């Protein structure tokens, strides 16, 4: 038996946990660079704000006058996600963090809705985050039950066949985990709109329509568990660091610095996972919608396997230089590391062009300092802390739970 617990409007709930002035108000959280709405309070949803709305285009509507738009504060959301995970780990034998705001739990020993209800109350008390819980004999059913819980009392138990049958009759197929827009359109064409109709199909016809993945989803909906709990994420295949600029970048100095910073951050992520990169993609492009002529420069190339910041920066900057076009205003740049391999499994090159032992020691020292004193404390030369191209985050709340300088203030 599986449970799926997710935080309601998770980012907004994290903000509200530390700021009582946000309670009861329409609040949204914006994506990186203050672009689109990525989380909405119930009040904001009621006003008609949609997921992905570009805020600077819609904020002038009179009905949005009272909306509070926060910049995203991932240091806070990450720490609150950790707290939710810890509370769950105290209550369940096994917990799979599926995303920052969704966790699967193993309910084999506690297949009881009232136990989940108590855990839900405890999460609320400890982290201030309201949650919904779905219970089911498969992950897909637990996820669907979780959707159902949003409109019910916060906990839905699809291990109960009667509850399931009643819910299936009215739930649309796009609520099913793993059924995307393409599958939905296909199924709708065949007159299949509800979960009930989809579950009633034969396995063979589902396979014909939607390949083996759809067949698995179909089996899971009918109570046959195909997806076990995953306790560790699978090994990363790529590391991507791409950013919209806070303002358009026009000089090579700014672009060089941005590429160096992205390469440096990508290298750090690589090392965190004990991986080395064998190939790299570097790109930048102009703004797609501001009327400037479109230019998109991109280079993909193999590199000597490494996770050394300096080596990767050199490569990224060299590639950037080769496709740099002056008198152009750039809106976005990115560095992507590909073909990642475990550093331990890499054969040592007979004639390496770099001193790998020295590099490993230097990188270990760099990471140790940044871990201890905060990321960005030690930076490869030429990357400033605050830069003209830095991402915009005009209304970010304090990092309440991770920085002593940002603690919540209590008045006495």
């Amino acid at each position, binding site marked *: 038996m599986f449970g799926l617990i997710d935080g309601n409007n998770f980012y907004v709930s994290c903000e509200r946990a*530390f700021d009582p002035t946000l309670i009861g108000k329409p609040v949204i959280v914006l994506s990186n660079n203050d672009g689109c709405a990525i989380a909405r309070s119930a009040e904001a949803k009621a006003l008609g704000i949609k997921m992905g709305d570009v805020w600077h285009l819609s904020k002038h509507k009179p009905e949005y006058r009272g909306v509070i738009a926060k910049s995203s504060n991932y240091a806070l959301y990450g720490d609150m996600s950790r707290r939710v995970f810890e509370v769950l780990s105290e209550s369940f034998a096994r917990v799979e963090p599926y995303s920052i705001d969704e966790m699967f739990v193993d309910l084999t020993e506690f297949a009881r809705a009232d136990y989940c209800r108590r855990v839900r109350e405890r999460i609320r008390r400890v982290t201030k985050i309201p949650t919904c819980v779905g219970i089911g004999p498969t992950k897909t059913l637990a996820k669907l039950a979780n959707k159902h819980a949003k409109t019910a009392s916060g906990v839905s138990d699809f291990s109960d066949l009667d509850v399931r049958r009643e819910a299936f009759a009215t739930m649309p197929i796009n609520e099913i985990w793993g059924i995307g827009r393409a599958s939905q359109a296909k199924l709708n064409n065949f007159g299949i709109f509800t979960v009930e109709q989809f579950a009633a199909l034969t396995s063979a016809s589902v396979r014909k329509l939607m390949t083996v993945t759809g067949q698995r989803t179909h089996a899971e909906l009918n109570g046959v568990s195909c997806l076990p709990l995953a306790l560790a994420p699978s090994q990363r295949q790529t590391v991507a660091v791409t950013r919209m600029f806070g303002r358009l970048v026009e000089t090579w100095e700014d672009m060089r610095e941005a590429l160096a910073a992205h390469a440096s951050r990508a290298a750090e992520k690589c090392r965190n996972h004990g991986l080395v990169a064998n190939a790299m993609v570097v790109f930048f492009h102009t703004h797609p919608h501001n009327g400037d002529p479109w230019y998109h420069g991109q280079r993909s190339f193999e590199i000597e396997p490494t996770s050394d910041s300096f080596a990767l920066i050199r490569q990224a900057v060299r590639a950037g230089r080769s496709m740099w076009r002056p008198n152009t205003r750039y809106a976005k740049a990115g560095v992507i590391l590909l073909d990642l391999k475990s550093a331990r499994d890499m054969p040592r090159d007979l004639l390496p062009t770099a001193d790998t032992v020295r590099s490993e020691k*230097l990188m270990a020292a760099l990471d140790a300092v940044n871990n201890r004193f905060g990321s960005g404390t030690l930076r490869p030369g030429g990357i400033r802390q605050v830069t003209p191209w830095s991402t915009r985050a005009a209304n970010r709340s304090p990092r309440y739970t991770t920085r*002593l300088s940002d*603690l919540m*203030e*209590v*008045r*006495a």
Partner: protein
Amino acid sequence: MGARAYKGDETTGFQSPAQDHVEAVPDLADLLELRRPQRYAVRVKGEGLRSRGIHGGDILVVNTDAEPRTGKVCVAFLLGDVVLAVLSEKDGQWWLEPANHPAQPVSDHTEVWAMVAALVRTDV
């Protein structure tokens, strides 16, 4: 890159008798249980609770999972503000007594956010 940090163990001349006994400095995050999900650090503004030994600028470590108890100091959401208050119970009704405000009954518009569990002062 220069020498490694010397921790009292690896010496160049005489072998350190402490070699197998070096320990790290005590970890205050452990003492304060800062890694537990219900523990949060907050910063005090104002001198209204000096009588309870709490000064402005102090860091309080609070517990969101502790039972409320009469006479204990808590962090509360009160009228859109985050305040320190003394909790009390009279005839089954809980009351918040903030330093600079009249007492308020705990209701739908107030929230006892956490109970104060520990205090850190760095400017003694």
